[in-house]
């Protein structure tokens, strides 16, 4: 399984070669991404999982290792899928910097999921930060420059906390390996442990788009082009969901049971998740810029996912993983279509997008399907996640019950704005002018295909049941499924 490093090395080699590619860059990027996607699917389907890969021949915890479990490879498959979609919807990005940066982002997103070393994780997360900053800044206008520098400052400040946290971990436990830390976490002094958790969480919450760490999100989504939006959501966001599962629920888990080791912090995170859901859905309600609406909704979904993860029982975890998949698919549909719609109307404002659904009914219906899935309406993938998370939260403490009420209240707000927007596409166009640009068939096909998947999972949740159950099981028994994989025979 050492060949898994190709997932990192090939994109990076591509990034160097892109300096010289002129017109071929896009094709090369697509080929590389197709390779990583197929390769990761092959790993996922092979029966060699779970396995720990020592890089450079040095065994963990002394060398850096990659841990391939059903969970991590499953996320890799999703991330690469988003990556390949983002390449297909590129519109007019020609310069080599774009492709080079994209390939670095691809490698970093893969690495952030696969790595089993916390410092290596820090480097990968810094790499994603820089890559995302460069991609946001790519249009180089007022909007994107402002968004990029503000994101960079915020992310750097936060990641310095992460670095301090890593330093403290090394100082106290003398190791940097995630599995090693997980198995030694009980030895720590409670307050020192809290210090470590606070420092590391600060570092990762910024990328997780959680309130109040997420001031950059709407700006970044608004400034980025459609393909960058898909990357931000599909690659960074999905990797973020994995990070919670790995860092919070494996590294800081009590006896590998998927419960955060410090119950007070767990409650604080639930409060933060609730705040995120509430703030983002309320903020999206009156927002006129479609991309910002989707950005707010992304934050809200992330809050919901983290809420599910923090509850910690099997039901809620299953729900959270369903939510990850559903949010991943549905939001990509919306971002792909939003890019097309903005290009067609030349306006960011959804109120100007009347008549698109009448002109392109397939696109309009796909958008409706995506938004219904995000709302958690039955027959769409999001429903099962939401149902299971709420069901799981019922058996929790009072924080979690409050969380349910907040989820249900915001569901109303979310439903109103999403359906309001969806319906706008089906209104009659006021002026008889033609649209500025034509919708591209392949974008609509991608959106429609994803919509069909969303529908299929919604009607028959058993389609991904096995995968989700594997993931849930891995989190719930992380000692045998993660630590034992890295250090066979330690327990």
């Amino acid at each position, binding site marked *: 399984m050492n060949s898994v490093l190709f997932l990192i090395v090939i994109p990076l080699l591509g990034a160097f*070669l892109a300096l010289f590619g002129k017109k071929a860059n896009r094709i090369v990027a697509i080929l590389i991404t197709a390779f990583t996607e197929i390769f990761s699917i092959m790993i996922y389907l092979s029966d060699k999982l779970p396995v720990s890969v*020592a890089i450079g021949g040095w065994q963990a915890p002394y060398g850096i290792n990659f841990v391939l479990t059903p969970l991590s490879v499953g996320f890799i498959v999703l991330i690469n899928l988003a990556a390949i979609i983002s390449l297909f919807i590129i519109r007019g990005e020609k310069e080599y910097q774009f492709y080079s940066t994209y390939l670095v982002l691809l490698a970093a997103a893969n690495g952030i999921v696969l790595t089993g070393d916390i410092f290596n994780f820090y*480097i990968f997360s810094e790499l994603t930060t820089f*890559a995302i900053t460069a991609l946001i800044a790519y249009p*180089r206008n007022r909007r994107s420059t402002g968004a990029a520098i503000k994101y960079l400052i915020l992310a750097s400040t936060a990641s310095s906390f992460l670095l301090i946290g890593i330093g403290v971990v090394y100082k*106290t436990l003398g190791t*940097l390996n995630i599995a090693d830390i997980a198995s030694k976490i009980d030895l720590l002094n409670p*307050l020192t*442990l809290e*210090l470590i958790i606070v420092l590391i969480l600060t570092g990762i919450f910024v990328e997780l788009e959680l309130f109040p760490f997420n001031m950059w999100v709407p700006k970044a989504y608004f400034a980025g082009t459609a393909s960058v939006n898909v990357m931000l959501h599909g690659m960074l966001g999905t990797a973020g969901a994995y990070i919670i599962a790995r860092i919070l629920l494996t590294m800081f888990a009590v006896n590998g049971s998927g419960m955060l080791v410090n119950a007070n912090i767990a409650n604080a995170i639930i409060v933060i998740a609730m705040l995120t859901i509430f703030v983002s859905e309320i903020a999206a309600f009156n927002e006129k810029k479609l991309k910002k609406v989707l950005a707010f909704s992304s934050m809200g979904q992330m809050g919901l996912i983290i809420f599910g993860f923090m509850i910690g029982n099997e039901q809620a975890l299953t729900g959270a993983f369903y939510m990850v998949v559903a949010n991943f698919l549905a939001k990509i549909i919306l971002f792909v279509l939003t890019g097309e719609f903005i290009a067609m109307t030349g306006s960011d404002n959804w109120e100007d997008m009347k008549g698109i659904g009448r002109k392109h009914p397939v696109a309009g219906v796909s958008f409706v399907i995506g938004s219904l899935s995000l709302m958690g309406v039955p027959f769409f993938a999001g429903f099962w996640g939401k149902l299971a998370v709420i069901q799981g939260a019922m058996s929790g403490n009072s924080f979690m019950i409050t969380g349910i009420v907040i989820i249900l209240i915001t569901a109303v707000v979310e439903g109103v704005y999403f359906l309001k927007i969806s319906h706008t596409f089906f209104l009659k166009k006021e002026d008889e002018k033609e649209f500025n640009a034509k919708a591209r068939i392949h974008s609509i096909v991608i959106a429609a295909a994803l919509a069909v998947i969303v529908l299929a999972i919604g009607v028959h949740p058993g389609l991904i049941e096995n995968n989700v159950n594997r993931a849930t099981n891995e989190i719930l028994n992380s000692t045998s499924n993660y630590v034992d994989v890295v250090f066979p025979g330690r327990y």
Partner: protein
Amino acid sequence: MKNDKSLLLNILAIAFLAVLAYFIYSVATSNDIGIKVTDNNVVENRVAYRYLNKNVLDENSKYEWGGKAEDSAANVVTSIVADYRLFDTSLEVIVLFITVMGFGLVIPKENIKIKESTELLYHWTPLLMTYMLLVGGYMFINGHISPGGGFPAGAIMSTAILVGVLAGKQTVSHTTLKKIEAIAGTLIFSIATLGFFLKGSFFINFLEGGNVGDLFSAGLIPILYTLVAFKVAAELSGIYFEFYEGGEEHDNV
């Protein structure tokens, strides 16, 4: 910058720092059981101890000065950076690569004329440059024995080129730098991949190690450091060229 000093923000900042400070204080003075952050280091419990003893592969192995070891770099920091955790280091290269590329992407392209340098500077620069390049070269070649290594070496070499730029000497062209950068980067990762085909593992030090303390020891480390040094030098020099190279704004502004 009218409102550069906002009282409210200052108060909030101090309040936050006070919370943080109190938190750190209570962490430091906590009396609960368990390992505390303020405890003294016990090096034997750490991964570092195995690095120092160079017995990661075989716990009972011992090595001697001038003898063979699993990693024969005399500088233990180097052996960590460029061997045990080589993967991190190669990613560092990518960090530099992407930030410099991002810099080149966002920097406005304007024609900035450099002031004519004085005669003295113009003529003495080559001497200075040669000296600096020599120091840089020494550093990356000896990175595994003494303090130094690819990154500082690259920085010194790029300073040499900067001096050249300031003196008005066009030593290398921007395209050449780009090529060096790409070739060095490709080579680093090709060597990493070569390890997979030779020994079945990426980023493996597959060359015969040599003896601890020798110049020709530590296997791939000097080679990798050389590549890193060239890449860093090319990238950092690229930054200076981005400033002074005029040209068209990119077409999709």
